[in-house]
């Protein structure tokens, strides 16, 4: 068991790195804005690096030791509760997926189908799984191929592993809204990048756009008007308009990691606050 002194250091480290996460993701935001004419794959790499760097912050902050301590055990309790609540949909979702997979049926080509889904999904790290909705059996063969190409692109790009990393990081830093925003952007760019991969295989943009629209559910008329308010609409427009679709990511990895290597140690060591030596964790 950690004593009260350690607990208050951990609390300080969490709050300190939670604040500094804003700066890291701000840099990712800036870089992805600079890359707005580039492909979604490039921007996805930026957000992925930004989120993956966040766990470095508490490691650096911990070096500052007792000077960072905050003596408020309830803060630590709230943080633990928030992290568990943030992770629960993911854990529950994984259970439901493995349960769905067990109930799925295979066709002659070995593809898995289930009645419990309305859209194809993919997940899994070492043995990735693609699960198709039952309705996909009646799709035109070229549409089914396009959907499979989208899922294969996720698998080749290792998007699911990045998705899991982003979820874990956002659960640890749940109290910083910027982290949730970054995860949202990351997920969006992963979908755009997988769409780009489908188009690069010669699937007609209009056919693919129709497939996306037909998979979207509908809702009653809203007050909000116009186009581009939903994820599906943004993707349909992105599929139809001419834009950069290169899957190349390594130049961005190099740039983002270089930035991270320069900024993180300085940022982590930067003193946000220091507990005065005489009051240090002695109140217990």
């Amino acid at each position, binding site marked *: 068991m950690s004593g009260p002194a350690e607990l208050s250091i951990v609390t300080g480290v969490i709050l300190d790195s939670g604040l500094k996460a804003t700066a890291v993701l701000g840099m990712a935001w800036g870089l992805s804005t600079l890359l707005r004419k580039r492909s979604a794959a490039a921007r996805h790499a930026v957000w992925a690096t930004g989120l993956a760097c966040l766990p470095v912050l508490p490691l650096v902050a911990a070096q500052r030791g007792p000077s960072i301590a905050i003596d408020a055990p309830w803060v630590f309790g709230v943080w633990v509760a928030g992290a568990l609540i943030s992770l629960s949909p993911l854990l*529950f979702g*994984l259970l439901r997926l493995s349960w769905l997979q067990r109930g799925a049926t295979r066709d002659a080509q070995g593809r898995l189908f289930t009645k419990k889904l309305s859209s194809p999904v993919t997940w899994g790290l070492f043995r990735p799984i693609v699960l198709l909705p039952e309705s996909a059996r009646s799709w035109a063969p070229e549409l089914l191929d396009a959907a499979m190409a989208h899922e294969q692109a996720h698998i080749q790009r290792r998007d699911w592993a990045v998705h899991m990393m982003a979820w874990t990081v956002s659960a640890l830093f749940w109290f910083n809204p910027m982290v949730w925003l970054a995860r949202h952007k990351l997920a969006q760019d992963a979908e755009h990048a997988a769409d780009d991969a489908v188009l690069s295989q010669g699937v007609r943009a*209009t056919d693919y756009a129709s497939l996306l629209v037909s998979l979207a559910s509908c809702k009653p008329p809203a007050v909000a008007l116009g186009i581009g308010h939903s994820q599906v609409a943004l993707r349909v427009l992105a599929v139809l308009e001419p834009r950069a679709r290169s899957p190349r990511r390594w130049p961005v990895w190099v740039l983002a990691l270089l930035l991270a290597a320069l900024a993180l140690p300085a940022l982590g060591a930067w003193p946000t606050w220091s507990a005065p030596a005489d009051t240090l964790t002695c109140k217990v």
Partner: protein
Amino acid sequence: MCYKTCMSDPLSRRERQIMDLVYRLGRGASVSEIHKALADAPSYSAVRALMGTLVEKGHLVTARDGRRYLYSPTVPAEQASASALDRVVTNFFGGSKLQAALALVGDTALDPKELAALEAVIAQAREEGR
């Protein structure tokens, strides 16, 4: 095209009341029957409009009976309560199975205007040979 998925749309309090009454009657109900049975009922035409909405949303179907129209539920009562439970579970866990995987199309929804606009954009692009 979105008939089935619309079934999961939440109903307003009034719409819920009307659906409950139709289920309780257990047969095709006319607007005037529902109007009479409805506690603190709004005007007859308001009830007719509400029932029209329920038809549009895919909860009710109409059948002609002489001079009047009878409304009956599209989903039998037992099935409807099962889907209500499913809805609670889905809402509570926020479609968690889609959050734990990568979905080709997630659980975002289009409203009819947006859907029509998108279909127009696609038709236009098709004409341009894209």
